[in-house]
């Protein structure tokens, strides 16, 4: 089906509020989605629910038991929590896409989740629009106490000879670069928002010494590292920095860490290969609830478990920063449906 004919279908569906007679014996209501907000947990979806009046669209086979149906409104704004970790993320995306219940052909996808940040790059209650997502979990690993001379980490590429050698093995989900025009538009629409910030978060960031960590929170841009393994500390942070630089050929700078992005984007990209959606319409927003490593004088273990004071504010900032983009897409759908407006 051509792009133009998809738009005709969409227009007909919206105008008539009618079902597309897709199966000859069983008409199915297909919801024409303009924006699908995606996060690992229901807590990260909650800020969107009241703000956009999202309601249950009915159980869908294959979704996480903790979030068994998509929430949508009449404007084509929908949201789904996938469950934590890569398996859940990819499973939910594929389940939504292949359910036959949603027309995603011209939808925008906003992956909006909590993340930790490298204190040399930013701080608590900041929000980061992501350019590059690099998987740091697809790797070989040995315990770091047994390293050969010259190795700085126990992680190395699969079938590589050392951590600095290139891997010849490709799974296909190691690296994604999001459409620059969409990132730029999202930054432009959201950079003037007033971020929520908590006094406790302000006190916590003051324990760090990096200028980026002690500065006021802001809307910024960066690159992210994904892994099911929720690592923490200066040594694994340095490894993530080096890995992101190596895999991207120096194009990406490690900024935030989370578990699922490469699986979520990977699944969306797989679905895009069938023509059911457009992978150039994926945006990723990270709201910073914690650092990826301790402050001076703190042990890595204590840092991982510490209360940064930013969890509630960072959760609310997901919609504070993301909503202007969603609102603009809906309000100017005539422009957005054909691509990111200039």
């Amino acid at each position: 089906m051509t792009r133009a004919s998809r738009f005709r279908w969409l227009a007909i569906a919206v105008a008539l509020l009618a079902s597309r007679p897709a199966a000859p014996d069983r008409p199915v209501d297909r919801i024409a989605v303009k924006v699908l907000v995606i996060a690992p947990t229901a807590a990260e979806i909650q800020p969107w629910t009241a703000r956009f009046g999202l309601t249950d669209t009915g159980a869908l086979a294959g979704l996480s038991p903790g979030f068994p149906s998509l929430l949508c409104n009449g404007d084509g704004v929908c949201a789904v929590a996938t469950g934590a970790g890569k398996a859940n993320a990819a499973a939910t995306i594929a389940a939504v896409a292949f359910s036959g219940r949603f027309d995603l052909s011209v939808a925008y996808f906003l992956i909006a989740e909590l993340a930790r940040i490298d204190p040399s790059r930013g701080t608590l209650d900041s929000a980061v629009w992501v350019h590059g997502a690099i998987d740091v979990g697809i790797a070989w690993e040995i315990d770091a106490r047994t390293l050969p001379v010259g190795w700085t980490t126990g992680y190395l590429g699969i079938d590589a000879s050392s951590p600095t050698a290139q891997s010849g093995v490709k799974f296909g989900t190691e690296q994604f670069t999001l459409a620059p025009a969409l990132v730029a538009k999202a930054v432009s629409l959201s950079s003037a928002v007033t971020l929520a910030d908590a006094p406790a978060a302000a006190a916590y960031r003051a324990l760090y010494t990096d200028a980026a960590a002690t500065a006021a929170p802001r809307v910024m841009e960066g690159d992210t590292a994904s892994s099911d393994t929720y690592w923490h500390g200066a040594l694994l942070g340095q490894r993530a920095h080096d890995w992101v630089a190596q895999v991207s050929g120096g194009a990406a700078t490690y900024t935030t860490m989370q578990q699922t992005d490469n699986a979520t984007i990977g699944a969306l990209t797989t679905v895009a290969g069938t023509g059911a959606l457009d992978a150039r319409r994926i945006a990723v927003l990270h709201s910073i609830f914690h650092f990826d490593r301790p402050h001076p004088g703190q042990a890595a273990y204590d840092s991982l478990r510490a209360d940064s004071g930013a969890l509630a504010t960072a959760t609310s900032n997901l919609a504070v920063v993301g909503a202007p983009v969603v609102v603009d897409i809906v309000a100017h759908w005539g422009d957005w449906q054909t691509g990111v407006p200039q």
Partner: protein
Amino acid sequence: MRSLLALALIAGCHGHTGAAPADGSGDDAPPPGDAAPTGRQIKVMIIDMFVLEGSSFGALGLTQHLTVNGVDVHCNADDVCEIVTGMGYANAASSVMALVLGPQLDLSKTYFVIAGIAGVDPAQGTLGSAAWARYAIDFGYANELDAREMPAGWPYGYFGIGTTLPSDPPAPDYRGTFHLDDTLAHAAFALSKDVVLEDSADAATSRAHYPDAPANQAPTVLQCDVVSSDTWFAGTALAQRARDWTKLATQNDGTFCMSAQEDNATLEVLTRVAAAGKLDFHRVALLRTGSDFGAPYPGQTDADGLTMSLAAGGLGLSLDNLAKAAMPLITAIVTDWTTWQSGVPPE
């Protein structure tokens, strides 16, 4: 041999990419809805992760090709089919979900055989060993501190998310333990335990470095369990973590022997879709064969053990033995379908 593996892995990747038609031919497929199963009834679905695993089942003559939601499916006239998911959690989950939600196949009575190669724990097996799992445990969904920054006295830097110590069992919301059907796992083992597996002189030379059985013996069919992680871990400390975590996640009922990179993702999808009534999770079997040792022999470093692991002669064996170990189960299901269609027959 290492370059062979790299070639194989790259080829597998290409196979997966090729599964997604660029012409958008899946676009007008009718939505499956939530209706009762329709379509071609499949007796056995083999789930492989890269193309060489699939090639090991060449004797099945899987010459019929169809595309389900972008996934290439190969079948024979006995309604035995096979897919290649692509490697790692993301590819496994998205490919398997695409397959099971597709409208063309009725998978409600299908036996699923997940069949792939793996790292083998020398405490339980050797190069070429074939293990039917009762449990699949997620290794990678965890907290990790670099072992040089972890609290004093810890055995390794991994511990469960939502827990305090490496010795803690998984948190209540951990979804990383799958208990496969014991009756099916036992039947699969019983049908294949007397199979003479492939062995080789290269593998015999490599395993002779290990002082104890079963690592230094010829490969056999086993019943023991699989841990999965996108991260292909190896070495003394991390192998111990896999053993410990398997015990913690199964109330001491499981025994770690194989490490893989997809199974918990595949099983999460099958669990979810079984809950919607589209397939029967009691009909899922998991087979992994040892392509490389997951821990070094005495005197060998972790780094040498890992970086030289694929040159030890296990890869070809593990591929051959996938089919050797799986065929008795597949043959039994197909030849006595009238019995198997209603469940695993009593012995």
